[in-house]
């Protein structure tokens, strides 16, 4: 009888374990925001976006803006659409954007204007190349 009780107890504990284990699985819900393989240019854009958020904050605080993005990579990073540089327009937009960054960093005048001009150059390029993130880019504008 004692042995039977031990077996019963053991099985109940095993059952409970599996039941609990099961509950953990039921509640499991993974959060994945970028499930697909990103191109080099897409990753560079994400990095540039974070960088620009920081620069926006620096300008609003009256601090000197500092970028960490290697802008020359705009010309070399492999894009999602492999033919994006074929007609030369992306390259032209990228050059204008890089000049707007240089102007922002060098100007002795109004940094807010120079910054907003740079953001506008992002929008101009995305209007032509990839309109998806335009709403997000417009939020970088300083009012």
């Amino acid at each position, binding site marked *: 009888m004692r042995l039977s009780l031990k077996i019963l107890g053991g099985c*109940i504990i095993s059952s409970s374990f599996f039941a609990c284990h099961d509950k953990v*699985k039921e509640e499991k819900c993974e*959060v994945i925001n970028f499930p697909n393989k990103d191109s080099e240019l897409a990753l560079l854009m994400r990095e540039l976006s974070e960088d620009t958020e920081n620069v926006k904050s620096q300008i609003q605080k009256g601090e000197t803006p500092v970028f960490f993005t290697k802008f020359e990579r705009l010309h070399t990073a492999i894009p999602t659409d492999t033919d994006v540089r074929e007609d030369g327009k992306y390259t032209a937009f990228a050059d204008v954007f890089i000049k707007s960054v240089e102007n922002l960093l060098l100007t002795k005048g109004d940094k807010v204007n120079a910054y907003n001009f740079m953001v506008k150059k992002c929008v101009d390029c995305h209007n032509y190349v990839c309109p998806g993130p335009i709403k997000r880019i417009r939020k970088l504008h300083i009012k």
Partner: protein
Amino acid sequence: MKRIVLLSVVLFAISCTNSQKTEEGVSQKYGDQNITEEGVITGEELMALLEKKDSAQVKVAGKINAVCQKKGCWMYIDLDESNEMLVRFMDYGFFMPLDASGSTAIVEGIAKVDTLSVAWLKHQLEDANASQEEIDAVTEPEISYSIEEATGVILK
């Protein structure tokens, strides 16, 4: 004694059965980590809601019928047999798996009836790897249900 052993085997079997069920129920969240299925409505309910007002904050469930094949940055879900809804994601901050078509999505955000511009429709066709002929054929904007900035998605 035999009864006790039999009872134990039955209990064990029930546990294993439960385990199989929940393994199938594992879902994935995108965007807002706190999104739940509570208060989810159907596509038909959403369309009825948008007959009464211009926009509505909703959680709506629907089967995915198309996903951007470049990055997963937009998708269409079925609202009923003849209506669909464009879904894009808040701040370009999360995307769908390229192979998500056929899965059920629960999408949270502000739904409305929107005008999709010619530029957007052409871009969308490019993302879907459509032919140049199909892209050039787009000349008019389209009226469509949409969630422009979904805050979270549960994919099942």
